[in-house]
C-alpha cells in the first residue's frame, strides 16, 4: 500500500480518569486497536467519528484517485489481541490476613467435612470443631481430592485489595500437599518397627 494513502485511526486512547488510574506502566502508551484505511481525506478530522479518534492521522495526496473514496470506510483494520486490553497492571492483589487457623480433617461425609480448628492468630483461643459444606466453602477443585481424615489445611480469612483499589473480604482453604508413601519407605519403617519391638520382647 502506498505510504501516502494510508490513514491510521487510533481508537480508545481517551479514557476516563478512573480507568486511567487503573492502568499502569506502559499499557496506556498504545491504542487498544487500530484502523488502517486506504483513503485520503481533506485534512480535517472527521467530526462524525467523534473525539474517540482524537489521534487521527491523515496523509493527503491531492489529485489522486483516492480523493474520491469515502474516507469513512476503513479498508482494513488491525485488532490487537484482547489480552492486551486486560494487561492493565503488573501489580498483584494484596491480601491482609485477619485470621488464620490450622485445621485437621476428622471426618468426611456427603457434602462436607468436619475439622478441628486450631487458632494460629491467637493461640490462647480454644480449639474449635467446624463443619464445612462443600457448596459453601471456597475450595479449589485440585484440593477436593486431598480431603481425607487426617488431612491438614490452612483457613485464611482476610481482606484483599485489588490492583484497582477495591477492597473485598476473602476466605480461603488451602490443603497441604504432602508426599506419598513409597514402598521403600514403608519397608524401612516396618523393619525399624520390628527391630524396636523385638528389642523390648527379648528383654521383657
Amino acid at each position, binding site marked *: 500500500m502506498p505510504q501516502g494513502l494510508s490513514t491510521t485511526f487510533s481508537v480508545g486512547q481517551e479514557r476516563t480518569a478512573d480507568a486511567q488510574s487503573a492502568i499502569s506502566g506502559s499499557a496506556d502508551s498504545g491504542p487498544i486497536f487500530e484502523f488502517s484505511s486506504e483513503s485520503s481525506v481533506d485534512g480535517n478530522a472527521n467530526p462524525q467519528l467523534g473525539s474517540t479518534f482524537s489521534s487521527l492521522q491523515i496523509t493527503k495526496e491531492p489529485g489522486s484517485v483516492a480523493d474520491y473514496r469515502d474516507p469513512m470506510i476503513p479498508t482494513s483494520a488491525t485488532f490487537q489481541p484482547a489480552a492486551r486490553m486486560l494487561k492493565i497492571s503488573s501489580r498483584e492483589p494484596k491480601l491482609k490476613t485477619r485470621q488464620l487457623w490450622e485445621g485437621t480433617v476428622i471426618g468426611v461425609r456427603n457434602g462436607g467435612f468436619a475439622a478441628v480448628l486450631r487458632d494460629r492468630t491467637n493461640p490462647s483461643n480454644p*480449639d*474449635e470443631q467446624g463443619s*464445612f459444606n462443600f457448596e459453601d466453602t471456597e475450595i479449589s477443585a485440585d484440593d477436593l481430592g486431598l480431603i481425607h481424615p487426617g488431612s491438614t489445611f490452612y483457613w485464611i480469612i482476610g481482606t484483599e485489595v485489588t490492583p484497582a483499589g477495591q477492597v473485598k473480604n476473602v476466605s480461603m482453604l488451602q490443603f497441604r500437599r504432602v508426599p506419598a508413601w513409597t514402598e521403600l519407605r514403608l519397608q524401612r519403617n*516396618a523393619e525399624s518397627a520390628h527391630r*524396636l519391638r523385638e528389642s523390648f520382647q527379648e528383654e521383657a
Partner: protein
Amino acid sequence: MRRSDPPAVDEFEISVIGPGRGECVIVHLGDNHWCVVDSCVPRRLAEPVAIEYLNSFQNGALAGVELIVATHWHDDHIRGLASIVSKVPTASFFCSNALNTDNFFALAETASATIQGASGVEEFSAILGIITDNASTRQARRLASPKWVVENRSLVRSIQPSRSFPVTITALSPSDGTVRRAYQEIANLLPRAGEAQRRIPSISPNHTSIVLWIEAGPLRALLGADLEHTGNPGDGWMAVVGCHQSHRESQRASFIKVPHHGSANGDYPSVWTRMLTPDPLAVVTPFNAGANRLPLPSDLERLAGRTNNLYCTAPGPGKVPTRDSVVEKTMRSQLAGRRVIDGQPGHVRTRWSVNVENPQATVEVFHGAYRV
C-alpha cells in the same frame, strides 16, 4: 480444702480431670505413691494436668508416680503422656496388649515420620522413643519396656506392711479375643504405597481399652476408660462382667469412672447391678470433639437414674471466642456448625481415709466440675 492440699498418707484418692477433650485419672495409692491413667493437656496449660496437679502439692508427688497407664491410644486420652513418662522415668508404663504387634509399632514409626502434626499414635511413638533413650543397657530396657496388658493382669500389688494400706490394681480388659481382633483392625490403618503421608486418625476401636479394678484396703473402684458395650460376649463390657464374675463375684465397687464419656454405647446395665454398690460415686468426663457432644442430656438422665451421686468434670463446651466482625461474619457464612471442644480442666476429687471404720468419701469439685 484447697486443691493443692495433698492427701494424707493413709488417704486413698481418685481425681478425675476432664476439660472437654481428653481425660486423666490420678490415683493416690497411699504414702505419696501415685498412679496416672491417661493424660490430657488443656489449652493454656503448657504441661499435662497430672504434672500440674501433682507438682501443686510441692511434696515430690510427681516423683512418686509408680505406674502410668495408657488405656488406649486415642488422642484425647494420651496427649501429654510422653511428657509424664519423660519426667518420671522410674514409673512403669502399661498399655493394651492389642498394641503389641509389629503393625502397631510400624504405625508408630509411620506417625513419627509424617509431617502432619500431633496425633495419639505420635504420642505413643514419642513414649517408645523416650523409653529407648532412657534404656541404654539391656537391663534398663527390660525394666523400662512397656508392660502389655490383658484381662486379669495385675498391675500393682502393694501389700507390704510398711504401706499405710494394701493396694492392688488389676486389668479387666482387653480380653484375648478383643486383642486378636484388634490386630487386624490396626493392620488396616497402616498406610499403603502411593497414599499421602497424612496424620494417622484416631479411629481405633474403643473395645481395646484397659478397664481397671482397684482395691485399696476395704475400698473398690472401677475405672471404665472408653470401653463400649458391643453386644458380643467375647469383648466389651460383657467380657468384663464375665471376667469379674469369674474372679471376684462378691466384690462391688463404690466408685466408677463412667466409661466412654457417659455414652449410651458405653452403658451396660449389668455393670451397675453386678459390679457396683447401690448409689456408687460416678464421675463422667465430657467429650466435645465428636460428631455429637457427650454426654447427651439423655445420657446424664440415664446415669442419674442409676445413682444419686453423679458428677461431671466440666459443664460443656466453653464459650466461643469473639473475633472481629468481618471474621465472625465470614465464619458464619462458611461453617455449617461450630463449637468449642475444650475448656477448663474441671476436676472431681474423691478421698477416703482408708484406715477408719467404714470409710466415707469426701468429694470436692474444682474448676467448673459439678454434681449432676
